């Protein structure tokens, strides 16, 4: 007799991913898949995937997906959720997609309090296109378009999206998490579940920023990249709840 402690979630499609070894996309996809399975939302969920490494997320998570143009996922999700308010809708976006080209779309989705959930994968770099600087690249961090490192003078300091969007009334819940170790991963899963729960209650816009790794473009091993999230990224991007309307009410 045995009891399964952990196995592959049915919320994932039974395919291999194209992600690099140790890429956190795989972990975060699992958390979303598990949450949707536990909440019994897989049959009706509609995800919107971005342009970036996770452009193929629709092949990996076991629910309906719509591919969006770069940065436009919040607008696409608005089109789906406003016409089908009963469906659980979420966007899954990287830092170039959400904070650079998509800055207007995410800002207005939060401003309007759109009733969908955004999972924001912040790995401080452009992954798919080979390591260019992102709006969230840290000061001093090197990238292929900031080869001497990001500077305040040339590039300005990076943007804290969770905090910035939380100044808007429409933001119902914003939390920053990471999956660099097991306790953090458990917290991240709880945050994602909370976001979807609030969405289904129609409370407002929910936003989970996940500090993630890009071992390939950071030039580190997957294990070292995970450590870098905790040692470097969390200094500038603090983990924790940024806004919770239920607490503030």
């Amino acid at each position, binding site marked *: 007799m045995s009891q399964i402690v952990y196995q592959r979630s049915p919320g994932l499609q039974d395919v*291999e991913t194209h992600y690099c070894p140790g890429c956190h996309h795989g972990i975060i996809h699992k958390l979303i898949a598990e949450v949707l399975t536990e909440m019994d939302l897989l049959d009706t969920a509609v995800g919107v995937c971005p342009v970036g490494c996770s452009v193929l997320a629709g092949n990996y998570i076991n629910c309906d997906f719509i591919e969006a143009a770069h940065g436009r996922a919040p607008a696409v999700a608005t089109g789906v959720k406003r016409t089908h308010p009963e469906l659980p809708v979420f966007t899954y976006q990287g830092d170039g997609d959400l904070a650079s080209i998509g800055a207007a779309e995410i800002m207005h989705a939060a401003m309007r309090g759109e009733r969908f959930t955004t999972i924001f994968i912040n790995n401080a770099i452009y992954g798919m296109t080979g390591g260019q600087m992102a709006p969230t690249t840290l000061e001093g961090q090197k990238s292929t378009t900031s080869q001497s490192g990001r500077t305040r003078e040339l590039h300005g300091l990076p943007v804290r999206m969770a905090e910035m969007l939380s100044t808007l009334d429409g933001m119902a819940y914003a939390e920053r998490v990471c999956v660099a170790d*097991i306790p953090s991963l458990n917290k991240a899963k709880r945050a994602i579940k909370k976001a979807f729960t609030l969405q289904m209650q129609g409370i407002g816009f929910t936003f989970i920023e996940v500090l993630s790794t890009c071992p390939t473009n950071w030039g580190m091993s997957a294990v070292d990249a995970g450590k870098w999230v905790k040692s470097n990224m969390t200094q500038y991007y603090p983990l924790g709840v940024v806004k919770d309307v239920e607490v503030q009410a």
Partner: protein
Amino acid sequence: MKAKVTFNLDRCKGCGLCVSVCPKHILWLDETVTNVKGYHPSGISDQDKCIACGNCAKICPDSVITVEKLDEEKK
């Protein structure tokens, strides 16, 4: 044996995250083995020491690992 850990070896990308989160330090990447992808897949060196915490399986980005907790009777 408290736990049974199985690996879908051909899906492992040898990233080493499971090795880094195992509290008993019984996971390793076997460099004498390459899987169909050309990676050194992870494996468990001492199944008896496994406490079935599931950390390795939880962190694996590719859902390579299945962890089962066995009943105490079955020794």
